[in-house]
């Protein structure tokens, strides 16, 4: 049985495709807005690097993550501080607006998944069938 030799691979070129895109706030102007009805907007001036499938919000770490169609992740890059985080944790959908040169170029409607116990309590506190 041939033994494993790390030297055989020392010059190998490994094409690594990292599963994480750069943080959105470092590549584009981006706003996350929420109103009293827990409708969330993500307004950005550059297109996302890939099609978005859904958006996740971690109520504990106050971070928002965009999940792309090919399974990659892109973090918002800005923590959502109180008191706004509680409002975002109640949200179920996100409107995305791609605005360039003052004109709305594109618009989308995405599902929002909320992680974390705090978010679940806020989200389902009025849901009798949930029992949380």
């Amino acid at each position, binding site marked *: 049985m041939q033994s494993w030799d790390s030297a055989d691979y020392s010059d190998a070129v490994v094409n690594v495709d990292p599963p994480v895109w*750069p943080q959105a706030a470092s590549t584009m102007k981006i*706003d*996350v807005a*929420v109103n009293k009805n827990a409708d969330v*907007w993500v307004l950005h001036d550059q297109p996302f690097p890939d*099609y978005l499938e859904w958006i996740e919000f971690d109520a504990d770490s106050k971070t928002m993550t965009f999940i792309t*169609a090919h399974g990659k992740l892109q973090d918002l890059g800005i923590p959502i501080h109180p008191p706004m985080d509680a409002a975002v944790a109640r949200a179920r959908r996100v409107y995305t607006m791609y605005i360039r040169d003052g*004109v*709305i170029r594109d*618009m989308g409607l995405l599902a929002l998944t909320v992680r974390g116990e705090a978010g679940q309590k806020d989200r389902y506190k009025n849901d009798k069938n949930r029992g949380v």
Partner: protein
Amino acid sequence: MAIKNPQGPDAFPNDFRDPDCRQFSFAVFEQLGIEPSDRGEMYLQMVKNSGIMAGGFSKAAWTMEDKGRDHEWQLWQDKQKSDNEHHEQQQQAQKDFQERERDQLQRRLEQERIEREMLEKKQAEEAAAAKNRPNEDAQNNRIMAMPFQMMGAMAFLGFGSAALEKGADAMSPGVSGLGDQMMVTSNNNGGMLDAARQSLSITNPPAQDILVTGPSQTTAFTPGATPDADMDASGTSPQLTQQRNPMFAAAPGIGGPGRKA
């Protein structure tokens, strides 16, 4: 046989309805020596010459002597007069109605003519003004482009036709809701939200009333810079993003089919 005039000793016996008058007449005929066979014929001739009407009454007797029938005659005359007056009144009323209808028709036609002239004048002014505003259609198209862009975006997002028909309704809260009070986390001091509100002509609530939180409330956004101390700035540049995403670099704006935000 005593001859007695039933209408008085000096009156002419002209009321031949009275049996006494007939008897008196025959007595006179007898005194005059007229044969009995001729007395009936002579009586008929006398009745015929006296002017008695076939019904038994002469007009003179009917009008001058019968006071009750004279009263009915007067009533009949009054009724005829009243009927004539009523008929004349009806004719006058109908005439007035026709004149009134004709006047109203003339006034309506005149009013319609004035309105038509005003409309034609207004249309002519608008047509003349439209010639002086060649960019007006372009501005309207720009306003109308917004819903079509949204519908096109829905088509790109891969929704079915049924969802596409409801696309405007599904997106409308996303547009109208931008007029609500909201909180914003931003790396450009809420500039993108302001751009969206300006694009949709939303002025209420005022921008200064929107609570903006985030790392760069006082500093402008710089691509590639670290907007927050928690962020890792390595490998985050616009050039790298475009290199990894050639489709967007080749076709900026709305990309190809699929779900894109």
